[in-house]
């Protein structure tokens, strides 16, 4: 196979060119900030107990969204948005497994 038709194919396919340097840098800075916040807040005992749990979980979920939007380009997907639908199904299954397990096994501590 010659290289020429391939490189032509790349130019044809470049309408999917995802992301820019700017969006990657914004995503990187946001993810650094979202890592430093829980570290500073929790390790210095600025928040405790349930408040600390909330800070940790909220920053983790925000970090997840930052990665999806700025690095994995979820928002740039063309319709129909199969990737997003598959992701939502996956999140529903994971939350069912994790929250369901925690909920059921809580009864071990009661009985």
């Amino acid at each position: 196979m010659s290289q020429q038709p391939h490189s032509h194919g790349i130019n044809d396919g470049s309408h999917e060119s995802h992301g820019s340097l700017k969006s990657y840098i914004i995503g990187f800075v946001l993810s650094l900030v979202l890592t430093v916040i829980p570290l500073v807040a929790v390790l210095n005992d600025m928040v405790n107990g349930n408040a600390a749990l909330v800070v940790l979980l909220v920053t983790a979920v925000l970090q997840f969204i930052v990665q999806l939007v700025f690095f994995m380009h979820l928002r740039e997907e063309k319709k129909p948005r199969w990737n997003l639908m598959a992701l939502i199904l996956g999140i529903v299954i994971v939350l069912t497994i994790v929250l369901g397990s925690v909920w059921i096994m809580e009864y071990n501590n009661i009985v």
Partner: protein
Amino acid sequence: MANHGNEAAAVHHGHGHDHGHEGHHDLEALRQMGFWLFLITDCILFGTLFATYIVLHHNTAGGPTASELFEMPGVIAETFILLTSSFTSGLAVLSMNRGDRKGLIGWLIVTAILGASFIGLELSEFIKMVGDGAKISTSAFLSGFFTLVGTHGLHVSVGLCWMIALMIQLSRRGITPVTRRKVNIISLYWHFLDVVWIFVFTIVYMMGVM
């Protein structure tokens, strides 16, 4: 070579000469979608391991607890290393979109070095724990911990081997629609591993030492 066979098949499936590239592009897009579905099933795998860990993490059976065991400086370093490597794998994709093969391979090398140092830190952490008597068989908490964190580490190691193979292929074949799809996929995989690590960092380490 097998990929060349597939390319030929893809072109043959197109109805005319004009449609050949379009069909090829669709096939690569479909493969990328298939990889995304794999990542979703991998999420479910990690979901079950997280559920197991969360349920068992108080059952230390007289062994060390999370707050006694974890040493945060190493873990914090691992976290920033993996975050940075997620960013550099994105820069590799940007170089590829510009058609810059040297930049692409260069950023992949940086990503692989960061990934290897992550694995190195994690392994030395594990070895130290086992040396201190915190083995996978010590308690239910440690079984859950080593399985969850070890599975993530295994994913990173597999990603490293794959990335090295891809760099060899890129240096031999250049940026073709097939290698282009492969780079997109490995960068997706790497971001995914970073996402899983964020939850390992939060749920295992931060909540463990809290």
